[in-house]
């Protein structure tokens, strides 16, 4: 019985896929939203450039750079790459794995600091 169910499911899927391609033409959104995001990307790029232009330093500089970077990245992925309108299953499959990279970044920051301390002790001091 399981076999019958499986083959029927595959058959139904193929039929569904065929109608999908014929009728619904993927991601269609008003041009307005693209122009808006485009303008916002310009604005936030200008903001991050101004951080350098006005020579901000320390915590303020880093937090502003990261804030503007994340806002821009969010706009590109959510709107231009249509992630906002995708199914949650696809969102999870693509957006969760990169979080593992934060562990790599954390470990390499610790490792880099350790190398710095040993170099400082051996060569500079």
């Amino acid at each position: 019985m399981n076999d019958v169910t499986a083959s029927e499911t595959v058959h139904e899927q193929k039929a569904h896929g065929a109608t999908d391609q014929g009728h619904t033409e993927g991601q269609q959104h008003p041009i307005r939203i693209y122009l808006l995001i485009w303008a916002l990307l310009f604005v936030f790029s200008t903001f991050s450039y101004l951080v350098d232009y006005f020579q901000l330093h320390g915590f303020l500089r880093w937090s502003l750079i990261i804030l503007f970077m994340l806002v821009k990245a969010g706009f590109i992925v959510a709107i231009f790459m249509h992630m906002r309108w995708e199914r949650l299953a696809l969102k999870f499959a693509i957006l969760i794995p990169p979080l593992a990279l934060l562990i790599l970044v954390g470990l390499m920051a610790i490792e880099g600091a350790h190398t710095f301390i040993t170099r400082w002790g051996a060569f500079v001091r």
Partner: protein
Amino acid sequence: MAQDASIAGQPNSVEGLGGVAADWSGDKQAFPVHWGKAMMWIFLLSDTFIFTCFLTSYMNVRISTTATWPDPSKVFALDIAGHEIPLLLIAIMTMVLITSSGTMAMAVNYGYRRDRAKTTALMLATAALGASFVSMQAFEWHKLIVHEGVRPWGNPMGAPQFGSAFFMITGFHGLHVSAGVIYLSVVARRVWTGFYDRKGTYETVEVTGLYWHFVDLVWVFIFAFFYLW
């Protein structure tokens, strides 16, 4: 059995977390999108890991070096009429890439509306902007190598790791932009000749767009971490 058939027939019927379980289970296709789009997303995911490895190694050498790191604001300044304007060329390159992302998003939109002329024109505009980005990058590399003496193993401004990180990261990104220009030109030609009308779908234009937006996305991170930090 009847229940299974109804699930397969309506793959998008359940929303939220229940929808994740429904999409991943029940002997059916997990992602209800064109296979090319799912594969492009998975490729871009792997590319995310590659670029993060580059940026992480850059972070690691920058933290661990005892020499002073060259100030990118000064290294990448342009001399215009006697005034040093910091990061000017990089700012222009950023704007060019954002503009190309905008034209690409509109190309995808017009593709789904079956407007061949506008889709082709917008894709070619995107490719042209991409090509100008690579040209400006070539100018930047030339200036750094010939006039400032930056090499992968050293430079006159400070930490020798600056050169290797710069050439590796921007070089790999520039390679992506160059490949994207070729990719865009091929797909634009196919749009113009009516290939996708015969195929019955313009999904390929959206998949090409995903790649191009990703190239822009990577530049956002390079701009923040390499040029501004």
